[in-house]
């Protein structure tokens, strides 16, 4: 009995790992889009005029208030009504990335702003210009502050790529349901899938935790993130 199940897990593994690869691609693409959009959003929020700041906060508010599933459906099922058609994968990346950008923007803004004002003043007093002060003084500190919440966001994005299932993206869960359709072993397969997800989230946290450890400034503790 147990042997049967283990055998099933073993024989499904290649397929599931193929799905996991798609999940990883979704995660990296979604996070990447989130970084590309989130950084300018954060800069706009900090250094922009009131119009830009207003637009950025509206963007953040809206994207953080609407469930990811609704965003995904709007893009995948809704946009074709307006003549814009995306493949399920692209739609998923867009939805995940656009939403992650809203959260990441907050992370970066918080990190930059938490570097104290005296640091900028001290840099200027040495004769640095604002760009130099930002690059050599503010940024290195902000990056360190941003790592734990970024790790948190990365884990959320990874888990939320499962919603791409609903668009028909053949990711980890979808691969699982295909296997179940022929083996009728939903519990075993879904538990295996859960285990794969778990390993992936632990891996993300470990890698970013290592990075945080390596960049740690002696004497300064860094607090962890939340959900």
């Amino acid at each position, binding site marked *: 009995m147990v042997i049967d199940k283990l055998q099933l897990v073993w024989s499904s593994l290649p397929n599931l790992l193929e799905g996991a690869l798609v999940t990883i691609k979704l995660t990296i693409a979604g996070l990447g889009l989130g970084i590309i959009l989130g950084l300018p959003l954060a800069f706009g929020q900090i250094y922009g005029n009131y119009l830009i700041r207003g637009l950025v906060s509206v963007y953040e508010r809206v994207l953080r208030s609407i469930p990811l599933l609704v965003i995904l459906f709007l893009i995948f099922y809704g946009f074709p009504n307006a003549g814009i058609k995306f493949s399920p994968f692209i739609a998923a990346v867009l939805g995940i990335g656009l939403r992650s950008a809203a959260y990441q923007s907050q992370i970066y803004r918080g990190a930059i702003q938490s570097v104290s004002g005296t640091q900028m003043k001290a840099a200027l*007093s040495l*004769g*640095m210009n604002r760009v130099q002060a930002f690059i*050599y*003084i503010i940024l290195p*500190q902000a990056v360190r502050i941003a790592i734990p919440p970024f790790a948190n966001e990365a884990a959320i994005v990874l888990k939320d790529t499962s919603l791409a299932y609903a668009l028909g993206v053949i990711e980890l869960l979808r691969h699982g349901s295909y296997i179940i359709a022929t083996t009728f072993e939903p519990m075993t397969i879904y538990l295996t899938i859960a285990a794969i997800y778990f390993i992936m989230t632990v891996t993300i946290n470990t890698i970013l935790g290592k990075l945080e450890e390596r960049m740690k400034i*002696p004497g300064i503790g860094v607090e962890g993130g939340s959900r």
Partner: protein
Amino acid sequence: MSKKEILRIVDLHKSFGDNEVLKGISLSLKQGETKVVIGTSGTGKSTMLNNINMLIPPDKGHIYLEDVDVTTTHDISRIRQQIGFVFQDFGLFDHLTAKGNIMIGLTKVKKMKKSEAEELAMFELERVGLQDFADSYPAQLSGGQKQRVGIARALAMQPKLILFDEPTSALDPELIGEVLTVMRDLAREGMTMLIVTHEMGFAKSVSDEIIFMENGKIVEQGPPEQLFNNPREERTKEFLFKLNELYGEGGA
């Protein structure tokens, strides 16, 4: 006029909104002079220091560093390299070691070679007695040590003038002495310094002149013996009396 004039401030004004903080400040410093600014808090002492290197631009008036008008220069970076600034809360870069804090201005602003910058950084650290802490990060240093690194960082830029904004106010009493000692040595070596401080003992023994500020104006300035023992203005007397009650005659 035996010595060269390093700093001259003429009729400096600054308001924050409706709050007129500086109401026409004029003073000057010659090469090698140490002047101490005293006055109650909120009087505009920090604002004045920040005006001098344009961290806060003044509304009106002129500031000359030797012959250059700081308020109209197009290359403020050049000016700032020549004016050291020591902050009340140290202003050390938390992600850099003591040595790194000193080197960053040398390599990035003065474009000095790394090896040269390192040599100079070590020299300045030794000058403030911290050669053994070169690789410590700010969070690993005591307040007094941090401030000495702050001073070493300012010194390394080889400034014509150093501004100190209450350099010992954030320190525990037992750590104040080590910072004042470094500053006293600098004065003796002929560094030009403008110091805002409440350490009256230090002010008396080190400064060439005391400047008493109140409500955005200079009320009185003069040599320490005269200002402390024979103040001309009633306001100065009151201030010194209050200070005595608060801190006693002491100081370092």
